[in-house]
């Protein structure tokens, strides 16, 4: 049923994610700059970049087709849709009953696939290289993600995110069970891979030996690039948001109460900012691993996810 409260929750969390995504990137860059002893460009810089890029002239590189032009839109659209489907602020939302955790994972993969197609569409060596590497990583990430989903959905008997989150709030013991912890660590590793962060991909490199995401989007400029950047930031934000929602679900509104919703939005901001800042601080001391060492990392996370599933049999939990 379309309740007013649900609609407000939905709109508020989507707006918060959209407005906050570039700011999160800004915070992360600022943390990194601070730790490296630089002044940094300020938290608002990503928004300024987006504005600048949007005002530039749209460019179509020769030989590219509809896939190249549609990809930025699809990337942003999947980000928006995921932001709507994940109960970031409240579980009472009209979107929550239309898709579950598997749908969320699949939507994120849809964004990856579209971008890879756009990379191939340019017909340049860089585009193909980025697409090839991205799809390799994406293919290997899938098993870990779905096994973690399996481990997380076992206690509540449903893959519906609202049910999982409500269950975890009602029974805090579930949070500290080995199965849940292992699944969260596994999810955290694949989140790094999905968001294209260190140690899997370096978002700030343009060296052909190492770049993955940047190689795919090398031909984009102007307003299209603005959407690509925004899409990548949205993706990072919703992934961190998903992780925060599953790891520390406290504060998410489970009833139709306005103060609870407001508190949930504030807490969401704090949780995601803290996660992002932590990630940025960790990244200062990490190095990017070689592309062919990434499978090792992903095999490790797969093992963790499988252990999470098995641990829920032999460690009876609460």
């Amino acid at each position, binding site marked *: 049923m379309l309740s007013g409260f649900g609609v407000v929750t939905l709109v508020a969390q989507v707006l918060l994610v959209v407005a906050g995504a570039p700011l999160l990137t800004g915070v992360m860059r600022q943390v990194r700059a601070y730790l490296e002893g630089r002044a940094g460009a300020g938290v608002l810089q990503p928004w300024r970049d987006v504005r600048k890029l949007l005002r530039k002239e749209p460019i179509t590189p020769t030989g590219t087709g509809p896939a190249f032009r549609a990809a930025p839109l699809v990337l*942003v659209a999947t980000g928006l849709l995921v932001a709507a489907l994940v109960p970031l602020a409240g579980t009472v939302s009209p979107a929550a009953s239309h898709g579950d955790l598997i749908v969320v994972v699949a939507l994120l993969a849809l964004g990856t696939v579209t971008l890879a197609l756009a990379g191939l569409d340019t017909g340049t060596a860089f585009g193909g290289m980025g697409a090839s590497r991205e799809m390799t990583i994406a293919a290997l990430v899938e098993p870990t993600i779905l096994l973690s989903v399996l481990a997380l959905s076992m206690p509540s008997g449903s893959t519906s995110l609202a049910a999982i989150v409500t269950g975890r709030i009602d029974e805090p013991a579930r949070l500290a069970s080995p199965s849940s912890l292992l699944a969260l660590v596994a999810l955290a590793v694949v989140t790094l891979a999905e968001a294209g962060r260190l140690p899997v991909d370096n978002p700030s490199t343009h060296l052909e030996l190492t770049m993955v995401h940047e190689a795919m989007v090398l031909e984009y400029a102007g307003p299209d690039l603005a959407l690509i950047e925004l899409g990548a930031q949205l993706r990072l934000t919703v992934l961190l948001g998903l992780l925060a929602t599953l790891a520390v679900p406290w504060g998410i509104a489970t009833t139709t109460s306005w103060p609870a919703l407001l508190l949930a939005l504030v807490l969401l901001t704090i949780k995601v900012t803290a996660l992002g800042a932590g990630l940025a601080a960790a990244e200062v001391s990490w190095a990017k691993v070689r592309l062919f060492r990434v499978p090792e990392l992903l095999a490790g996370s797969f093992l963790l996810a499988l252990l999470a599933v098995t641990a829920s049999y032999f460690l009876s939990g609460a």
Partner: protein
Amino acid sequence: MNTISTALAVSGAGALTGAAAGLGLPARIRSWIAGALTAVVGAAGLAAGASALTGRTWSASFPSLLPLAGVRLRVDALSGLFMAVAGAVVVAVAVYGIGYARGGHGPVASRPAQAVLPLFAATLVLVPAASSVSTFLLLWELMALTSLLLVLVEHAERSTVRSAGIWYAVMTHLGLVLLLTGLALFAAKAGGESFDALRAGAHLLSPTVRGLVFVLCFAAFASKAGAVPLHAWLPRAHPEAPSQVSALMSAAMVNLGVYGTVRVGFDLLGAGSRWWWLTVLVTGAASAVYGILQATLATDLKRLLAYSTCENLGLVFVGVGAAGLFHAGGDPALAGLALAAALLHVVNHAGFKALGFTAAGSVLRATGERNLDRLGGLRAKMPATASLFALAALGAVALPPGNGFVSEWLLLQSLIHGLAVPGLTTAIVLPLAVAAIALSAGLAAAAFVKALGVGFFARPRSPQATGATESPALMLTGMGLLAAACAALALVPGVLADPLARAVAASRLTGIPPLTGGELRLRLTDTSAAYAPLWLAAALVVSLVLAGAGQRAWRRRSRRRAAKLWDCGGGQPTPRMAYTATSFAEPLQRVFDDVLAPEQDVNVTHVRESIYLVERVRYTNRVPDRIEHRLYTPLLALFAEVGSRARRLAAGSVHVYLGYGFVGVVALLGVLTVLK
């Protein structure tokens, strides 16, 4: 006379007149008439199947039609599902085929090809209607023979067709032998050869015999469905057949392997024990991962599609196996759900794979090329075909809003909830099955991004690709029908909820799948999980519009300017610099090096004057089918060895041959004397 019997009669009559038309009519109108009659066969099959899916059944027996046993037919919801799928594919492919063969050129327009096509279509529709061992085997063999003839149609053009034909002929007949043995054993022990008698007599069989019957039949059915390790014929025969035949084989014929497994395993043998279904599930998971891994590395477009068939049928077998396991574990509702997911995947796979093969056929017709490394840039030359292939790829990668995602979602749901079923087997096998499905979905994404991105996007890499033109309208119409079916399956799969429940019920699984129509919603014990495809598609469109509107609102300048690609200052990139299918798959090939054991060879030729200057580098990369290499080659070598030894027996002397006979008679008499 009800709908089903009328439709079946029409289908049979259409096939016979179609065959006659194909043989008798002149080249100019042959393909038109034969094609139209094939479409009639398909439409009749679709009608019969749809009618059966609404809950009607029909059975008949014609004792005088065939000597000794007669012909028995029975159509219930389970056969109806497979008949409807086959019929729908046949209709679309027949329309496409008229366009493909128009103008009467090429071997596919020849008399034999046009005469056999309607017969093959009819067997596809009629096999699920058989309800006695003899009828089933007869139709099964007719299907194998007609498809073999069609595979061989282009044998004069390419030598590879002949070897593919031999592989297919040998393997399909080995399968027939297994099936014949299994069903004959079953019929002998159960005391009758009609399916009713088998069903009633299944409990008379000892568990060992039942297991043996199941293993024999499953081996035959799995080989027809292209399951590892009995898949060797599939990636050869499907690519070498003319494209509309490939579409029929890959989208309709392989399904009958699933039909057979469900019919014999659940319906006739009554579900049986746990290890049967464990075998089915493991076979399915192995085929899914191995098939899609080979597809990811394939550079031949049709070979890629054929290997993807192995993958998808593997996923179906995972569902069927899980259904059996849940049934044995005492959770009929979940068993029903798993089987419904498997059957839905059969339907979805038929849709996107038929579309994929027909689009690949259009590319082949326009360029003469199947090698992805030499294609490219087709989206500008053949925009309609490219977008139709994109739709097929969307289905195949199992991502929303495609149709493949719907059934994979259901399958995953059934496996995830299956952990509640008690038992060590489920606890260990199900997580691994989930991982296998996930890995195959991820690799499928890589495979189809490659097929679409390298084959259709970027710039043409060969003169043939540069000169491509769009296909004729009839071919596009055929593909359009399939595309519409895919879209409908993707957006409103809920309408199939009730028919699927009936099909599951017809397989004698007692559980009703907890599916609700409209949007796909699962009612399971405590909470429900839902996926609303129509809602999601609408939300995706809304988000796209929002993103576009946002971009427009902030934009100052709206005119797009064309610009050169970034060229590192070295002049415009040529198509030779673009990533090929081989280079795209190289990282995955390296990751799965231990599994695939690819053969690579780098040959450097130096300039005569100095070893520091390179004149030419030759790089070859081949990924042989390792299972084939390890399993079949030694076996074939063994047979060849035995054969060459046996040749010594044939010395050429008449006295020796007569001597064999004499020795045989004497030895037999001796043995009989001793035994008495």
